[in-house]
């Protein structure tokens, strides 16, 4: 494996296949994400989008193919896998904050326990990050006391606290009440313009248009097409994408 230069992709999936029992959820997926690139993955439910997101930090294993992150094949288990995961942030649809820990503790746990950073330093940085996502005043509360939008912004701060090389977003706004979607998207747009590498599974076309460099359309476990956002939404190349867009645009 050659030393990763700045021009090599940060993530590279080659011929990746994955089954859930009889269901073939990822079919020969080839995808690479460059450093600083924001890729939006869009497509119908059950098309394999979330699974694609989850195989990159190995929350799901793959059956065949090859995934490299920062020039190295994903480790299978143990400490090296934990180390890889600490470099790839993940934001979930259902937030998944640690219910028994305060907002600040949620954000500082990783830096203290995984990176070995001193508590005081981690808390200072944690508060800065909470400030950045606009919820520093809630630092001492518990997750259940916050709204969905606030919880999701904490989850983003928790991912950022690890100084990840990349953040994966698995439908980050799908579980939110409509009026809370924008506050989360605003934080994500901010991250994108700061140059964070992001893979975002979402149906938010506004976000895709504002922040994405590339849109990947997935259906039935395959990548059907990849284009620049504007081109994808105005002139989709495939019938499958055209059909999908007509369904979500007319409502």
């Amino acid at each position, binding site marked *: 494996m050659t030393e990763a230069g700045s021009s090599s992709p940060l993530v590279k999936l080659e011929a990746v296949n994955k089954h859930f029992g009889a269901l073939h959820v990822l079919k020969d997926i080839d995808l690479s994400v460059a450093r600083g690139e924001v890729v939006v993955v869009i497509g119908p439910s059950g098309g394999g989008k979330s699974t694609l997101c989850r195989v990159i930090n190995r929350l799901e294993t793959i059956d065949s193919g090859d995934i490299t992150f920062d020039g190295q094949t994903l480790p299978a*288990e143990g400490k090296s896998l934990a180390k890889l995961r*600490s470099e790839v942030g993940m934001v979930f649809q*259902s937030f998944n904050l640690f*219910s028994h820990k305060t907002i600040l503790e949620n954000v500082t746990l990783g830096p203290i326990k995984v990176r070995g950073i001193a508590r005081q330093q981690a808390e200072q940085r944690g508060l800065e990050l909470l400030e950045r996502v606009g919820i520093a005043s809630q630092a001492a509360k518990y997750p259940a*006391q916050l709204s969905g939008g606030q919880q999701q912004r904490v989850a983003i701060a928790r991912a950022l606290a*690890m100084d990840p090389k990349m953040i994966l977003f698995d439908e980050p706004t799908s579980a939110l009440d409509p009026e809370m979607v924008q506050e989360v998207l605003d934080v994500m747009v901010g991250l994108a313009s700061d140059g964070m590498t992001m893979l975002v599974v979402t149906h938010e076309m506004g976000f895709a248009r504002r922040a994405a460099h590339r849109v990947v359309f997935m259906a039935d476990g395959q990548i059907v097409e990849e284009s620049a956002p504007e081109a994808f939404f105005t002139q989709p190349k495939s019938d499958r994408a055209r059909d999908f867009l007509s369904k979500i645009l007319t409502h």
Partner: protein
Amino acid sequence: MDDLIKYAPDLAAGFLVNVKLSLVSGVLSLILGTILVSMRVSPTPVLRAVGTTYVNVVRNTPLTLVLAFSALGLSDTLGLTISDEPSTNGFWLVVLGLSAYTATFVGEALRSGINTVPLGQAEAARAIGLTFFQSLRLIILPQAFRAVIRPLGSVMIAMIKNTTVSVAAGYLAESAFVMKDTFDDTGVSIPIFIGLALAFMAFTLPIGFLTGWLARRLAVAR
């Protein structure tokens, strides 16, 4: 009533033994139960198998047999000696058997507690780079414990009452045996019987109240 007053010092000394057995076995069974449940949810198949087999064998064996094995098997046959002082040795053999037995119930209570923790939190813990045992220790088990404080209280109450079968391990110092021994001299004495029952209730009832209070206080809001 005279019998109760006359034999009270002996019975009290015996009851103190029940208390000591309970405290030591309580701590040990909580530790061993936590280890057992950690094995049962671990990603290593061998650990899971060992944990499951242990729980299924020991939990389904009568306590009197477990204690008899502790005394006859461990001590007499395998020659395990914890102390040269016979009464101390007997005490620890009971503790060993009782803890090994109670730990299976602690482990099962904790396992149902683990099931109350949303899977997503375990994924989030792994996603920030925590190892399996770190996620278990920092995220899963703290919430599992809080969810099962009440059932753990019941396990502890059962364990306290189980100290009265220590005689199965040949250990004769605890109060129930002292009572029976006294009855051999005096005939059945209702006051002694009630007095001892009340002593146990004075020990176990507060545990029920305390765990109920703790469970409400420490409940994890989701």
